C-alpha cells in the first residue's frame, strides 16, 4: 500500500495510469483543470472511457469531440459564463463522433459521491433531488430511510474511478503534492481513485512556510507525477497564472462546427505532442 508516486514524463504517466475502457475522473472545479493530461489522453487515442467530472468544461468538450468516451457522469455541462459545450451537445443530440451515454447528477450529489468514495463507503446520502425530474431519468438516484428518525434521503453510489487525474501547484522532493486556492473535489478524487496522476507546475525541494492545514497529498496516495508548467491552461493555477477567460469565450466559435473543432485539435493538441512537458 505504501507504493510511492514517481515523477515521469506526462506521456509515460498517461500510458501507466489510463487504459482503454477505464473510468477516469479529471477534476478541478474551474481552477486547476488538468488540460495537459486530457490532451495526452487524446494523443494516445484512448477509447471507451467512462468520464466522470462535475463540470465537464472545455477539456471534456475536447475529449468527447475526439471520441475517447462512451459514457459521461456529470452534474453541469456548459462553458461557464459563455454558453453551450457544442461538442458535448453534438454527441448527445446527434451521436457525433459517437453516441454518449449520460448519467446526470446534481453538484451536491456528485460531490458527496466522491466524498463517499474517498471514505470507502458504498454510497452517499443527502437531502437532494426533491421534486426534480433528475431521479426519474437517472436510475442511480435512489432513496434510503434513516434508521433513527425515519427521514427519507437521496442515495447515490460512491464514485471510485480507476483513475483520478488532477493538476496542482507543486510537488516537493519527496513527491508529496500541495494544492491551494479553489481546491474543489481534488482531495476526494485522489483518495477515491485506484490510481492517481498529478501534473504540477513545478517541483521544489521543500514546500517551505505554509499553513498547518494546507491541502497536501502524501506521495504514498499518488501513482504518478508529471511536471507540466501551464498544464491547467486555459484554466488556471492560483499563484502562477490567471484563468484565460478570453480563450473560454473564443472556444465557443472554435467548437461550434465540427471542421473548425477538428482543425484546432489537430494544430494545438495532436501535433503539439509533449510540447510543454519538461519532466
Amino acid at each position, binding site marked *: 500500500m505504501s507504493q510511492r508516486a514517481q515523477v515521469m514524463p506526462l506521456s509515460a504517466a498517461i500510458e501507466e495510469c489510463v487504459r482503454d475502457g477505464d473510468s477516469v475522473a479529471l477534476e478541478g*472545479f*474551474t*481552477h486547476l483543470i488538468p488540460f495537459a493530461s486530457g490532451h495526452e489522453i487524446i494523443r494516445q487515442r484512448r477509447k471507451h472511457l467512462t468520464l466522470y467530472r*462535475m*463540470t465537464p468544461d472545455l477539456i471534456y468538450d475536447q475529449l468527447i469531440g475526439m471520441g475517447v468516451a462512451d459514457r459521461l457522469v*456529470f*452534474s*453541469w*455541462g*456548459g462553458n*461557464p*459564463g*459563455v454558453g*453551450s*459545450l457544442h461538442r*458535448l*451537445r453534438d454527441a*448527445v*443530440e446527434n451521436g457525433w463522433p459517437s453516441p454518449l451515454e449520460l448519467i*446526470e*447528477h*446534481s*453538484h*451536491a450529489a456528485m*460531490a*458527496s459521491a*466522491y*466524498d463517499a468514495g474517498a471514505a470507502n463507503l458504498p454510497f452517499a446520502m*443527502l*437531502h*437532494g*433531488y*426533491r*421534486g*426534480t*425530474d*433528475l431521479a426519474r*431519468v437517472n436510475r442511480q438516484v435512489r432513496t434510503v430511510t434513516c434508521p433513527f428518525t425515519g*427521514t*427519507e434521503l437521496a442515495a447515490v453510489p460512491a464514485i471510485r474511478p480507476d483513475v483520478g487525474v488532477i493538476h496542482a501547484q507543486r510537488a516537493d522532493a519527496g513527491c508529496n503534492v500541495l494544492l491551494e*486556492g*479553489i*481546491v*474543489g*473535489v481534488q*482531495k*476526494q478524487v485522489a483518495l477515491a481513485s485506484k490510481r492517481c496522476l498529478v501534473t504540477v507546475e513545478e517541483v521544489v525541494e521543500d514546500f517551505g512556510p505554509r499553513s498547518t492545514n494546507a491541502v497536501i497529498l502524501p506521495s504514498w496516495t499518488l501513482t504518478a507525477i508529471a511536471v507540466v508548467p501551464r498544464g491547467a491552461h486555459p484554466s*488556471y493555477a*492560483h499563484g502562477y497564472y*490567471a*484563468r484565460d*477567460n*478570453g480563450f*473560454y*469565450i473564443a472556444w465557443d466559435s472554435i467548437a461550434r462546427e465540427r471542421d473548425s473543432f477538428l482543425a484546432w485539435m489537430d494544430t494545438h493538441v495532436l501535433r503539439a505532442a509533449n510540447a510543454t512537458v519538461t519532466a
Partner: protein
Amino acid sequence: MSAAAYTGNEIMTVVAARALRSEDVCFVGIGAPSAACNLARLTHAPNITLIYESGTIATRPHVLPLSIGDGELCDTALTTVSVPEMFRYWLQGGRITLGFLGGAQVDRFANLNTTVIGEYARPKVRLPGGGGAPEIATQCGEVFITMPQSIRTFVDKLDFITSLGHGEGGDHRRRLGIATQGPTKLITDLCVMEPEPQTREMRVVTMHPGVTRERLQASTGWPLCYSDAVTETPAPTVAELAVLRDLQERTRRAHAA
C-alpha cells in the same frame, strides 16, 4: 444617454439588487444574479455575504467573474472551502438565507428547467443541467429568480423539472418535506412576480415603467394573475445605473484581456 434610458437587462439587475439585504448570506449564480449581488454590495448592502459554489465565502470581487470559480473570487474571499464542504455543511447545513437562480424555462409555480428542451432521451436542445440548482432551490431560506421574459421561456409546462419551485402549487413543498420558502421573487425585464399566499402561483406585483398588461401577457405562456394592488416598479436611478455600468465595463475589459 438620458437619465431615464436603460435596457431591460439593466432594470432586471437593478430591481434584483434592491431586493437584497446587507444581512443576507447569498448563494450566487453566474450572469444576472452575479451582477445583481455585486451591485447590491457596491450600493445599499455593503455587508452582504456572497458565496459562490466553488467554495468561496464572503467574496468581494472587483470585476464580475466569468465562471463561478475565477481566481478573483478566491483572492477576495474571507475563506475558501472544498466543494463537498460547500454543499454539505454550508448549503445543506442551512447556513444560506438566499439562493439566486435563472433558467432556460420557468413555469407559473417558478419551477425551473435547465436540463433539456424536448424529450430527455432525444433532446432538441441539450442544456447544461442542474449543477448546484436542485439543492439551492430546496435548501436556501428563499430563492430569487431572474430571467428575461418571453413566450418561449415562460412556459405553460416545463419539458423537465430541474429545480423545484412551488411544484404543483399550494402546500406541495411541505408535502415533499421541504421547510424552506422556495421562490419568493421572479424578477424579469418586464415585471416582478411573487407567489400568491395560498395557491403559490407567481403573480405580477409590480410592472416596469412603460410595460402594459398586453405586452406582459404576450410574453407569457400561461394566463397571468395580478396582485390586487399592482404598482409601477421605480425606474433605475442615475446612481444605480452608473455603478452597474462601471462594474460591467471593468468586467468587459478584464475578460477581453
